[in-house]
């Protein structure tokens, strides 16, 4: 029996379980996930990194694909690493700001 393909919310939830290795904050709360597209079991994620020189880039990209692939009903996953627009602190969630001790106006 084929599982029901996941919606974007389920994909976001799966990605939120991945912590950034340097800051220990979820990559969703860090604002590293730019977009999620779902279409009949095919999922495409656009993500970035806090810096293009991030040494864990490969693992984060592959980890995001792993997390999505574990969802029932997923047939294909594509994770694109993009650097435009450049990541900035305004992309942090309130939770991430609290975890990192960042002032709200930063």
């Amino acid at each position, binding site marked *: 029996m084929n599982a029901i393909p996941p919606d974007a919310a389920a994909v976001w939830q799966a990605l939120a379980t991945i912590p950034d290795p340097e800051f220990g904050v979820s990559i969703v709360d860090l604002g590293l996930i730019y977009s999620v597209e779902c279409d009949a079991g095919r999922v495409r994620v656009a993500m970035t990194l806090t810096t293009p*020189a991030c040494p864990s880039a490969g693992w984060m990209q592959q980890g995001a694909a792993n997390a999505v692939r574990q969802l029932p009903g997923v047939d294909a996953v594509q994770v694109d690493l993009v650097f435009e627009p450049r990541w900035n602190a305004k992309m942090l969630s309130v939770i991430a700001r609290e975890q990192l001790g960042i002032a709200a106006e930063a």
Partner: protein
Amino acid sequence: MNALSKPTAVGSLFSPARAKSPAAAGHAPVIGSSSSLAAQGRLPLAFMGLALAWLGAATVMLVASPGVLALSHGAPAVVALAHAWVLGVFVTAATGAVYQIAPVALGTTLWSERYGWWHFALQAVSIPGMVWAFSRWDMALLGHFGTAFALGIGLFATNTWKTVRRSGCRDAVAWSLILSSGWLLLTVLVGLVFGANRFWRFIPLDPLALLRAHAHLGLIGFFLTLFQGVTFRLVPMFTLGDVPDWRPVRAGLWLSQLGLLGLAPALAWRAEFAAAASGALVLAGIIASSRALHQTLATRKKRILDPGLRAFVSGSVMLLIAALAGCALLWPGSRGGSAPGGFNAMVYGVLVVMGGLLPVIAGMMCKIVPFLTWMRAYGPKVGRVPTPAAGALSNPRLESSALGLQALAVAPLVWGVWTRNSVWLGAGTWLLATGVGLFLVNQWGVLRHLRPASTATS
């Protein structure tokens, strides 16, 4: 089901139902395949392991005879101890870090992993032999081991240059990698020539003056040049900051290069005024880099610095203080010299090595060892099972205590050297040894995550 992950963004493959506004595809760094990712970190981690072993051994050497620090800096025991610390600990850790940092900072891959492993083997064999040869003052033996060490550094420099060339980058970070590896190779070759000169006496210059020139080629040429570049990739990355102005970074780098070009020959030929002027240029370079570091830290979003970064920054400040002390010693007519006791070259040496290099390198290791361990132990598991952050692999309290005790040891060591007082030297040595012991315990705790059993439950 196949993963379609690619290092660069591609056009839409299907009609999207976007959950957020789209991001345009942009430049992406080189991301390896699964197999190349699995190999990542092994080489630098091996260097870090070797550096940690040397940190223990060099500390044991110091604890065994703290009185060595009260001798002249030309004494064989001092030269042996200095090479155990500088080559065994600092050069091993720094070259290992370059194998990790250079490819990611330049957005490329290491030119040759095989060259790196040959370098590792040569370094692992040659440094113990060199330290032993110095302690016995056996120049023939030193020649053999020194040649093996030089071969390893030659491979390192070639690898670094080829990696930079492949990247096409020519910014301050790339130049610091090109220059520092070149200076390191030159330092080792000059050291070999000076060692041979002790045997055959073909250079009609004071061997102690040559030793000072050799030491500064390494300290300024390799360590300072490397810090003046890679700091401005690493600090923004760890603090969510930015480099607001690259001009002081470039100025710091080039002023130190200019200063060193004058300082090394001036020290060798005992040209007092030229040495003082060149030393002032190096100092100006350090001040420019310190200003750039201050500006960079001011932009950080992560306000609280972790213990490793605090040690790195405090070590950088101590390097500035040590440079001031060095300039005071270079001042024409300065009474400081090679005789033991008082404000002399040994006081300066302890400030540089224990006050500056140790916290900078140890602080860097507090960041890089957990991260390399994380990559190997947890990287392949990301997205499959819950994984910890790299920083969670170490014990912050142990780390802070270790680095704090190492910093506390500097004052009694400097005072002990200055006054030739064995009580202060003993107290400083034991403080340092306790700090190093805690540091090694913490690092061992991090490395234990590499055991398969420890990661299975995470």
